[in-house]
């Protein structure tokens, strides 16, 4: 069995990457093996978190999603946004088997605060000490062992976040809901938006969340991304950014 780690910024990215892998034929450890510690491949034991986190009884635990096929076992690690570099650096530094026994190591990052090249910089600077061939350009997979790369959402070129890509998927999968949700959001005036202190890309986030509240009332975005058709064969065919990401993962994980 080969092993791979994909670091992502948060739980939505984690659910999205997991859904893409399922589209590529992967099975989810949570579903296939009931997420039981006793069934966990020993390679991933270091990721089992110890509760409570930082003494805070209400803080969520960062157990990665684990997906596998016949040849490769992938951990999708959510690294708390801007702490992703530090968290993954600590984990790699403390566990030498993650430095030497990985078949692939990749990152999925947003392009919300800088250019895609700049987004890749801190990852390349940090992870080259473990993987000297780690690429310094977005969307590029280095095929030396381990395979490495950073995908910058939405398409390694434009500014945006996961929701930018999901909005494109929503236009294909749920065009009517997207239109109605958009009309609803348009009812908010400039001054409303200002008083709500929306930041860049918050409109896309609100749009996806509005559709999610219709598709899965009372459920989170992560549930909807996992269960609904934001990521599907249809959206893969019609959304170039999604097709790009799927191609990136296929190269990174060496999927035929």
């Amino acid at each position: 069995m080969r092993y791979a780690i994909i670091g992502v910024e948060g739980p939505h990215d984690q659910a999205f990457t997991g859904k893409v892998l399922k589209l590529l034929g992967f099975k989810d450890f949570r579903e296939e093996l009931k997420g039981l510690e006793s069934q966990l491949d020993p390679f991933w034991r270091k990721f089992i978190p110890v509760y409570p986190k930082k003494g805070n009884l209400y803080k969520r635990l960062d157990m990665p999603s684990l997906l596998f096929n016949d040849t490769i076992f992938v951990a999708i690690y959510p690294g708390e946004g801007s702490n992703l570099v530090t968290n993954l650096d600590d984990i790699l530094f403390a566990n030498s088997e993650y430095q030497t026994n990985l078949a692939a190591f990749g990152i999925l990052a947003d392009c919300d605060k800088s250019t895609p090249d700049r987004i890749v910089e801190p990852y390349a600077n940090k992870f080259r000490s473990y993987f000297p061939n780690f690429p310094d350009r977005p969307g590029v997979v280095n095929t030396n062992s381990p395979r490495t790369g950073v995908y910058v959402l939405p398409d390694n070129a434009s500014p945006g976040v996961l929701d930018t890509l999901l909005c494109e998927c929503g236009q294909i999968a749920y065009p009517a809901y997207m239109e109605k949700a958009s009309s609803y959001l348009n009812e908010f005036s400039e001054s409303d938006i200002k008083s709500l202190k929306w930041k860049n890309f918050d409109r896309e986030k609100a749009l996806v969340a509005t559709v999610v509240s219709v598709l899965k009332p009372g459920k989170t975005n992560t549930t909807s991304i996992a269960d609904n058709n934001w990521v599907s064969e249809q959206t893969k065919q019609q959304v170039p950014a999604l097709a790009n990401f799927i191609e990136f993962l296929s190269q990174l994980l060496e999927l035929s």
Partner: protein
Amino acid sequence: MNLKDLGQINILVGGNNSGKTSVLEAISTYCRPLDPLEWLNTSWRREIKYSRKPQLDALKWLFPQNSQVSHTHVYEGETYVSSNGDFPVTESRAIYREFEGISELGEVENSSESQLEIDEIEFDNILRGAELELKVATIYDPEELSVKFEIWENQRFVNRKNRSTAVLPIDTVTPFSHRIEQLQINLLSEVILLGMKPEVIKLLQQMDSEITDLVILSPTGKSPSLYIDHKRVGISPLSAFGDGVRRLLFIALTLVKVEGGVLLIDEIETAIHTVALGSSFAWIVKWCQLLDVQLFATTHSLEAIDAMLEASDSETDLVLYRLEKKESQTKAIRLERERLQRLREDLGQEVRV
């Protein structure tokens, strides 16, 4: 194995048989590299006094072993340790060479024979012995200092050579030393003279809040002993108290003994209840800092690691080394305090294996 950038407080973790105690043994002999008694004591430290193996066998096992070589073969082995830092010794090399000789008793018994042939020597008359050659290099002298000692099987070893100046105060607290070693009354006296007694009592109160005083008494007028004054039971001998009290007192007194040197504690969590770990460790860290003592402690306990983090702050020079045994050598993963804290508190990571 390389332990880079040691801290003042060093925690050693790793699986069973990963070499944690061996590291303590290497440090122990390195601090007194020309002292054969330190080598012998170190070799015996793993064993209970009354079931110890012969001194030669124990000493031999401090040196590299090879399963390819028969145990009946005359053994020769060498160890090498080097360091940098304030201690003037920069390298220590020890060579252990076994040999065989004929006992004097055998020669007397055979003295009537005109010529003693090797074939005629009875097996019982052959004694095993070993030469222990100890060498050091120091920052003052690029030439290696070297001393040799002969140690014979079943014979008391007497060191008649001059004491070396290449010495750093060092002592080891094993998981059972608080049970088998006599507490040194003179060390308690030293604690009292240093004005540390109230602090030592505070430490013991982590175990039993009703302890109020420590006294040296000689009820029979002969050998003085250590007594504890206790709110409920009154003045009682130390032996009447539990393991935790005895161990913490043993650690405290040993710490005073090695002022300006090195304290080695094997399995630091032994006998200390989980609730008392944090406060006990805070005491140990504080006094290591005040007495300029470098601490090396092994542990198997995650609670002990967390308690050591809790007992220290960002100013504390704390380092954890995880020993990982690979095929040809042991690797030491170094986690400095800040990274260790993130791994434990932010990421909830297992850091022992």
